[in-house]
């Protein structure tokens, strides 16, 4: 329904990638870098985002406070983009979505953990430094549990709010249900109480 109203713009990366690789493109495609041997940057992808956020001229009320959801950035690294190029893309998205249009961004990136992926670490840490809120989802240290699927660490990085103590972090455990997630404090899952 949101898509019908024009409220949701969805770029399906996988399908779009097939288009750009197997069909000749007249205009620069958002995933143009897949065709280029030495793609330096993700400027076409950013231009797609910026175009999608432009107000429609049909006279309908403009949507305010856009939200950009990116799922997920680690895939761009796997496709050959450098960490700095991906950071530049996010930088420009931040400038447009957050600063210009007063919206928000939610970005998913995977932590390589013990795998020691240097590019992924630069991307992850660079993004963390640009973020005001970091949500770290990880499995339980003790292993798999049917009733507690993992734990979420929340780190606030917005120092200028006097009511929120800066650098505060919380940890919650969660269980994923059909269409929602339920949170509880550590050790307080209804299954174990």
């Amino acid at each position, binding site marked *: 329904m949101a898509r019908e109203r024009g409220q949701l713009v969805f770029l399906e990366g996988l399908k779009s990638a097939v288009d750009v690789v197997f069909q000749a493109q007249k205009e620069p495609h958002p995933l143009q870098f897949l065709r280029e041997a030495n793609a330096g940057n993700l400027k076409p992808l950013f231009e797609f985002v910026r175009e999608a956020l432009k107000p429609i001229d049909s006279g309908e009320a403009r949507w305010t406070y856009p939200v950009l959801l990116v799922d997920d950035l680690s895939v761009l690294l796997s496709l050959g983009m450098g960490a*700095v190029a991906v950071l530049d893309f996010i930088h420009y998205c931040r*400038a447009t979505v957050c600063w210009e249009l007063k919206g928000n961004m939610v970005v998913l990136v995977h932590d390589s953990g013990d795998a020691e992926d240097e590019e992924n670490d630069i991307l992850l840490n660079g993004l963390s430094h640009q973020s005001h809120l970091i949500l770290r989802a990880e499995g339980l240290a003790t292993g798999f549990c049917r009733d507690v699927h993992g734990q979420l660490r929340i780190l606030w*990085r917005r120092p200028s709010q006097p009511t929120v103590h800066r650098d505060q972090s919380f940890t919650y455990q969660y269980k994923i249900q059909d269409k929602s997630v339920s949170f509880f404090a550590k050790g307080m899952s209804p299954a174990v109480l």
Partner: protein
Amino acid sequence: MTPSEGARAGTGRELEMLDSLLALGGLVLLRDSVEWEGRSLLKALVKKSALCGEQVHILGCEVSEEEFREGFDSDINNRLVYHDFFRDPLNWSKTEEAFPGGPLGALRAMCKRTDPVPVTIALDSLSWLLLRLPCTTLCQALHAVSHQDSCPGDSSSVGKVSVLGLLHEELHGPGPVGALSSLAQTEVTLGGTTGQASAHILCRRPRQRPTDQTQWFSILPDFSLDLQEGLSVESQPYSDPHIPPVDPTTHLTFNLHLSKKEREARDSLILPFQFSSEKQQALLRPRPGQATSHIFYEPDAYDDLDQEDPDDDLDI
């Protein structure tokens, strides 16, 4: 101590810490991490410089100008000269609004000033520049900017320069960080324990030994510093209070030390392959009563029973 004296003392200590960071001039490296962000301290130093009447330039690459100026009152904001490289740092909009040459061009332009007024240049952030510029280029530019007040000949006309560089430690390898560290006159590493931030300050004064100290602090909403008591230590070697020191030489299965008797016995021992004159005499003189030894040998079919020395190298 009366409350007003206490407040003055508190302000005095705050000024002391900020003064020590800004007094030396040159490059001040603020090393922060994801958990302990350093922009607040950068803004506190910017505020201090502005209040001292210095010219303050901000090279803003990471956050918008509004976000950087947030929290400063209008008096401070009027004194800041903001160079915005956040909106379009790579000139993707092709409008040429950005400073030609980008942030590096702006930094190099600051080398050419001739003002006698002391100036503070805040780089937000040095990490942003280091990820996109070659390390050597950046180091050369930083060296030129931060040392222009100590150039021979023209030094009297140019005021003191302080360059405050915000560096996100996790983003760079030890090489670039080491290079920047060697350029810096002062290094501040941010850390802390739950709820309490600390700054480890390393100062390199010319012709003196480097000094380091750790200061616990918090930053108030107006970006003034609130120093915490008690935990400020001077150059202390780090020791974990929770683990008692363990002596690894207890309960060994071998001797690490010799007693006096054992030492004497060891010193008087003759090594088996040391050829002394006594040993030589003993070998040459057959011992009385010693029967000659017999070797019983059953030759194989293929043995060579020739007693002659085939190699001719035995000295018998």
